[in-house]
């Protein structure tokens, strides 16, 4: 299917304008990360002198590399945990029929409404009680079960034709096998989406990793970013922006790869 040139141009125009609008705050950050603080504080838009000082400083300020690895580990663990638990739960909500299923689903959804700020102190006490402060487990365990993921996957699982399930029952396929060999492959795209989402939100977490750690052993990059900010002194925005960009870069790469995967998974998983 080919498109008329004029239509194509129109789409490119729309895409470019939207991309510029969406990306402009990030462009500002990019420019600022190369400015001296005088340039920033006097409100220049284009740097008068381009400097790499901010990047050098950001790398000197905290064990950035170690923090990046920690962030990667924590995000990965949370992502796997979420995918596993959510897909299991979503499967139960869509393909199994049992008493109280809908009530239970609603209770699951209700957990999304508990403001994180209200549960953070009791959770901190729990993790401390389990002696999990300063561990990857302590950082990730509270986020394994997410109603959000269950909800997302439920919406997608619901679109899988019921006939498939009935057919599997006739051939005597167990639920676990059906879940592993039929449902998961079909839902590949939504699993990738949830995976990317889980990874990125964990990557961007700040308050919990800060509370659940007291030293640098398992600390993540967002805490590092916060360390670049001062309380009573002027902030070095250039350094903060440089640090911010270093931290954002891996997530952008992941998004780009995720996009590709998403498309690929779509063509492969087109069983319908």
């Amino acid at each position, binding site marked *: 299917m080919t498109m008329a040139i004029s239509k194509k141009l129109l789409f490119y125009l729309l895409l470019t304008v939207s991309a510029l609008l969406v990306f402009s705050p990030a462009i500002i950050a990019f420019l600022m990360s190369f400015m001296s*603080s005088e340039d920033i504080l006097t409100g220049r838009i284009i740097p008068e002198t381009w400097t790499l000082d901010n990047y050098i400083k950001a790398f000197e300020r905290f064990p950035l590399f170690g923090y990046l690895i920690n962030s990667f580990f924590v995000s990965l663990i949370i992502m796997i945990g979420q995918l596993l638990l959510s897909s299991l739960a979503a499967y139960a909500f869509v393909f199994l029929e049992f008493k109280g299923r809908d009530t239970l689903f609603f209770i699951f959804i209700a957990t999304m409404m508990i403001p994180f700020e209200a549960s953070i102190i009791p959770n901190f006490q729990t993790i401390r009680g389990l002696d999990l402060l300063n561990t990857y487990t302590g950082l990730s365990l509270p986020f394994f079960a997410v109603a959000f993921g269950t909800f997302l996957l439920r919406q997608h699982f619901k679109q899988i034709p019921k006939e498939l399930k009935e057919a599997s029952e006739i051939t005597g396929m167990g639920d676990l096998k059906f879940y592993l060999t039929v449902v998961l492959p079909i839902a590949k795209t939504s699993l990738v989406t949830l995976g990317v989402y889980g990874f990125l939100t964990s990557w961007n977490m700040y308050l919990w990793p800060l509370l659940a750690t007291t030293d640098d052993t398992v600390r993540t990059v967002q805490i590092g970013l916060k360390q670049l900010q001062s309380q009573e002194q002027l902030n070095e925005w250039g350094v903060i922006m440089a640090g911010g960009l270093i931290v954002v870069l891996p997530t952008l790469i992941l998004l780009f790869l995720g996009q590709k995967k998403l498309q690929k998974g779509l063509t492969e998983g087109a069983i319908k």
Partner: protein
Amino acid sequence: MKQLFIFILVAFSMLLSACNSSEGNEGEGTANAKGGEETKGKTEVTFWHAMGGQAQVALDEIVKKYNESQDDVQVNAEFQGTYEETLSKYHSVGGTDDAPTIVQVNEIGTMSVINSGNIEPIQKFIDEEDYDMSNLEANITNYYKVDGKFYSMPFNSSTPVMYYNKDAFKEAGLDPEAPPETYEEVEAAGKAIKESNPEMKGFALQAYGWLFEELLANQGGLLLNNDNGRDDTATEVAFDNEQGKSIFKWIERMMDDGTFANYGTNSDNMVTGFLSGDVAMFMQSSASARDVIDNAPFEVGVAFIPYPEKEERQGVVIGGASLWMSKGKPEAEQKAAWDFLKYLQKPEIQAEWHVGTGYFAINPAAYEEQVVKDAYNEMPQLQVTVEQLQATKPSIATQGALMDMIPEERKIIETALETVYNGGDVDEAFSTAVEQVNAAIEQANTARGE
């Protein structure tokens, strides 16, 4: 059925073991990095702080120096977020093994920590060895002396000062070496500046409770009753009078003149506004002095904060933070921590801290150190911040108010200031604020359950 169960079990245990093994490795890695062998036989002191940015660089340097200076104590300085985050966390672990030996708490957290009962007043150590606190800057230690007793060791301290644009002053025909001292002079200077450059506003005051408190203290006004909460727990506000209102009236007059610049609660925006020539004067912490002077494309002047003409200048209340010792720690650990606290007060360390961060030197002997003298030669304005502190007349007003609900009071005052900035009625905004602060005091007093 069984299949499923086993699957879940296996998957889960795999996941958890994966976390644990990697965490084990990491743990070892950093322990070594910290000098695992060196720490053997040393008393470890954990020090929680809230110093980000350049202050952290300076602090880490000092801690490193201390650790290298002797063989008995190893201090581990650990960043815990903002002051609020650090204090919340400290409250949650207070009295347990996870509590640090030393914690940094900002000045308004003072009563909150004392009330928690989880700390050991440093007075105990002062008494034990007759440590002479009078060597330290009286205008700083006054704040931290509660009921005649030292609870914590002052550390990073600052006060607000008024920054002004000397070039703009010259252009407006004002004397750049004689900055305005009173509210009225600030107003007049603002008008002159606006006349010479309609693009530039005269004065900016960030909507920040701390600045209100300082302006109040500078005219001798008290914030809370019962001597600013120092004689006994405060039961209501003490600023419901002309002194308290004068600050709001002053802003209103500048608003009417069109010389007031509104940056809301955002101090970064205010500083950028000043540096790019949108406003000629503003009030901000003395700790930013070096950065402001460094980054300005014009000559920056630093002046004392203003007061109403009919009052007399009293001076400023100290802000910043102090260091607290945890209760229930082994004696050796507390002793080690005390040793570190004393180390921090050495003139050469304080000189380094003062020059590196812009915070005051708690030990005035530091001002005689060569590094400080060099810095003052380079930027004479820095000295004004210290002069203002040392010119402060010790009184209950300048000693500062103590209460655990001061953070809430600040928030309420900020709202009132913003109301005035946006053209709200001064009397109404002021009386609402008084009412709300009184309610907050009452709530805090009931909540303590005493």
